[in-house]
């Protein structure tokens, strides 16, 4: 019985993890977007302080 439960959990685990990866894949930023993001994060604050 426990064997089946464990295998069930394992299937669920792999399925959930795969789904999470697929979701990240959809929203993954391009290198350009990543660069813009970093620059805007750095400059929005430092501008106010300088």
């Amino acid at each position, binding site marked *: 019985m426990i064997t089946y439960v*464990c295998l069930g959990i394992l299937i669920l685990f792999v399925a959930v*993890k795969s789904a999470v990866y697929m979701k990240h894949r959809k929203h993954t930023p391009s*290198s350009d977007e*990543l660069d813009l*993001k*970093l620059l805007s*994060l*750095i400059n929005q604050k430092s501008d106010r302080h300088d």
Partner: protein
Amino acid sequence: MTKKRAVTFKPYIKTRYAYEKLRVCRHCQQFTVLWEAECSQCGKSTLVPIRERVTAKVKRTMLNERLIALFIGLVAIYFGQTFLQMILSAAAAILLIALLWFVQRRMLPFEVPSEMETLFEQEQPRIIEDIKRNRKLAVAALKDDELLTYEMLREISTFVQNDKIRLQQVVLLQSFVLRKDMDLRVEPLLIDSFDTDLAAYIGEVAKVQRELIKNSSIRYILAYEAHILEMENGVEILSSVAGAAIRLKKYVEAYPEFIRRYARNIPKDRFLRLYRMIQQHPESYWGNLAEEVAVIRRERYEWDSDF
């Protein structure tokens, strides 16, 4: 004016993306945008590019997931009631772990940028703080080595984009002798307001590296022409920019009045180029420039065989 120093810049390594210049210490997690080999905080040689760091972290997480899957699989096998059940559980577990591993491998190139984005968001205050530390370090070097300060600020300005850091660089650049072979820049240093050092710098660059004078620099000079004329060498600055603008027909066509105003002050080779440009394209609109050029040619170069 203080005496200018002859210097040679350390080459500026251009990266396609700014974040490629951001590194983090594996040991103390401090960020840096400079080129130092050892972490300035903990002194260890454990600085790695941010992408490398995030990739390692993602791989680690993926490995942990596989280990969890393996553990669940082992429990399933352990509690198998018959030998066949154990064999079948083992086969199922291996298959599932292989599937997970396959998905992970395919998703690694997407997972890393996602994770980098998260890291930038979460670590924003620390990244800003550490870049400020870099800047303090640069300013602290000023007393002994202006060149080093400039080189550091040049790196930092890849990330920090404000007028203060631009002007700091311009002021330092004005203390060096500018040469043709130097890795100079103009556009990234332009600011919104008028600054005498910046105007003087543009004027000098216009002499040594004409090709760096583009639309935005000409527009800057034009916008503050009245201010520049009040400077000691104002006419000289404006004339060298006008001379540099003659490099391309499109600039002459865009700013004929500006070039006309300083046509008398530009050197012969630049004037010759302007003269020929107008001769070759009589159909273009030159405004009063064509007339002025004709007058100057008659007055100064009447008997010059180059014309």
